[in-house]
């Protein structure tokens, strides 16, 4: 079926500005196939149902809108944690700022290095999970990424490395347009913690494919930088084997536009997937969490916990779906999305969905949006806590359910600390 003219024009205009990176045969064919898929589905447009609440035009435009760089002057996030840093500046790997990329228990390299090898374990994964994640809902920006990402990190986890891997994204050029693609394979019984932080670029498109084998564990904590004008479209595609664990948490402070998609498929029995996020937005801020979890095995658990604090006309979006396939009995699915609107100009748009084809399942979902609880506020003030401080305390309490999804206490404390400071900077 031919694409509508406008969609076709948008797609061709974007593709015209991109060149396929060099690489070995396996990668070139995956990239060429992805490009063909992008042409067939077309880039997202305003009329697409899946983009009803978020305007995709700045994400699909041939040139990234400028975004001023921002120096917070704060110590880098996760600085207190012993970690392996892989640094990208405006999407370009920086050897000087990165640690020596080697860690016991994992094979780690840059995508551009893996690309030079004719035989590579990532051959069967690169673009594969992304392709699988295009059904039943198309995610054209992810396919675009598979076709044109210039670099990324490729990790095969065979053991239980003591240090987390931290991908650090620095933004120093106000018109940078970065596209990165990471591939992670957690082998049986292995375990990895991946940290990501930083704004990355004026516009970022990142895809992360994570394949967690039986009994493997993947923990992910991400923050997206404090730059006010940056834009980002991210996709995580995860596949979970038997008794595998996948836990991902994202904190977003500021940013003009963010669309975070997370697409997970539980294909082994007894797998556990938790996806959580908090975002705090003030003014020109639009944040969209789009999650799609497919249960295709028995006795699996999935949780989606998303909390948003919005003020001065900020917008939050949540589109979350749990799909329980025929035969995925004993599924335990939970989804909650809530927003705290600190004024009447801000808005929260939510579309929670359940689609269930098995009969012995327990799934629940809820979505709320509301203001600060006046009764609780008065209680705190009556104990001497000033209004602004009491409001912040209640705001953090609102976010707590999502933040508590981070298992590691040190990581959790770092995130809470950043949220506290974000609120503190906004005190009148």
């Amino acid at each position, binding site marked *: 079926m031919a694409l509508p003219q406008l969609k076709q024009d948008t797609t061709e205009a974007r593709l015209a500005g991109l060149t396929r990176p060099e690489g070995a045969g396996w990668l070139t064919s995956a990239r060429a196939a992805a490009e063909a898929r992008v042409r067939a589905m077309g880039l997202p447009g305003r009329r697409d149902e899946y983009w009803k609440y978020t305007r995709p035009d700045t994400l699909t435009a041939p040139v990234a809108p400028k975004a001023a760089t921002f120096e917070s002057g704060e110590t880098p996030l996760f600085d207190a944690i012993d970690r392996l840093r892989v640094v990208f500046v405006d999407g370009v790997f920086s050897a000087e700022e990165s640690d020596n990329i080697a860690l016991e228990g994992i094979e780690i390299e840059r995508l551009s290095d893996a690309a030079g090898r004719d035989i590579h374990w990532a051959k069967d994964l690169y673009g594969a999970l992304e392709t699988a994640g295009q059904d039943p809902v198309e995610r054209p920006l992810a396919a675009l990424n598979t076709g044109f990402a210039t670099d990324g990190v490729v990790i095969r986890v065979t053991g239980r490395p003591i240090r987390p891997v931290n991908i650090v994204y620095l933004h120093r050029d106000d018109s940078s347009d970065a596209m990165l693609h990471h591939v992670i394979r957690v082998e049986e019984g292995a375990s990895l913690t991946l940290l990501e932080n930083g704004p990355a670029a004026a516009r970022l498109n990142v895809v992360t494919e994570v394949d967690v084998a039986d009994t493997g564990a993947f923990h992910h904590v991400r923050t997206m930088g404090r730059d006010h004008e940056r834009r980002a479209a991210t996709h995580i595609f995860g596949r979970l084997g038997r008794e595998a664990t996948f836990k991902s948490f994202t904190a977003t402070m500021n940013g003009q536009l963010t669309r975070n998609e997370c697409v997970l498929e539980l294909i082994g029995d007894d797998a556990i997937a938790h996806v959580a996020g908090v975002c705090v937005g003030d003014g020109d801020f639009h944040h969209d969490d789009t999650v799609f979890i497919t249960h295709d095995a028995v006795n699996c658990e999935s949780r989606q916990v998303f909390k948003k604090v919005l003020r001065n006309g900020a917008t939050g979006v949540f589109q979350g779906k749990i799909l329980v396939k025929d035969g995925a009995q004993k599924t335990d699915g939970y989804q909650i999305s809530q927003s705290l609107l600190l004024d009447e100009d801000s808005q929260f748009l939510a579309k929670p969905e359940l689609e269930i084809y098995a009969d012995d399942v327990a799934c629940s979902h809820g979505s709320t949006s509301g203001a600060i609880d*006046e*009764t*609780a506020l*008065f*209680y*705190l*003030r*009556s*104990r*001497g*806590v*000033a*209004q602004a*401080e*009491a409001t912040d*305390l*209640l705001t*953090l*309490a*609102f*976010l*707590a*359910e999502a933040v508590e999804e981070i298992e590691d206490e040190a990581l959790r404390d770092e995130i809470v600390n950043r949220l506290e400071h974000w609120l503190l900077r906004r005190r009148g």
Partner: protein
Amino acid sequence: MLEIKNLHVKLEEEDKVILKGVDLTVEAGKVHAIMGPNGSGKSTLSYVLSGKDGYEVTDGAATLEGEDVLEMEPEERAAAGIFLAFQYPVEIPGVGNMTFLRTAVNAQRKARGEEEISAADFLKLVREKAKSLKIDAEMLKRPVNVGFSGGEKKRNEILQMAVLEPKMCILDETDSGLDVDAMKLVAEGVNALRDEGRAFLVITHYQRLLDHIKPDVVHIMADGRIVKTGGPELALEVEQNGYAGILGEVA
């Protein structure tokens, strides 16, 4: 300590007058009790004194040690020394009881220009006060009042009072929903705080609590006014004859 003169209060949203000229003076070191039928305006008085939204003072005044409290924000009143033990303590999911207490103590200290309490001193202080109220460490860790039984909530109010050491303690039906043992604990907590420099206003529907917290003065409130004032014997009279008897007498 607390002086209330001709206080008239109506609801902000409706044309409903609740307090119709309350006069009351509570001296330092004294315990005053307010008794009265449901709906007579006792809770409203306590809310107006602590600064809750939704009420409009149309006439009269209330001062704490000569300072106009009605002009102050709720947090300023707290720092000035007013404390209300709520009839219905509020649950705050996500805020730990200890965090809440420490934030409150330090906020009040800051407002008074004092230094923050050290973490060690604070812990010691809370543990000591909690012990006598039979509040265990586990309860202190839980979110404020979440999952607490009625009695636990009331004990938690008294713990806050003990830790914050206010000058003017207002207790709104702290006895309601308590069994005898819990009520004794609460009364002991209050009695331990009795001091020359501190005053109490104990609001209660029943005389029961006043067996344990001996009041110096008892007021009867009805339809938004103090209709009768007397000594502890007034509470016994209520116990024996009910409010109907007394109200009939003053009518």
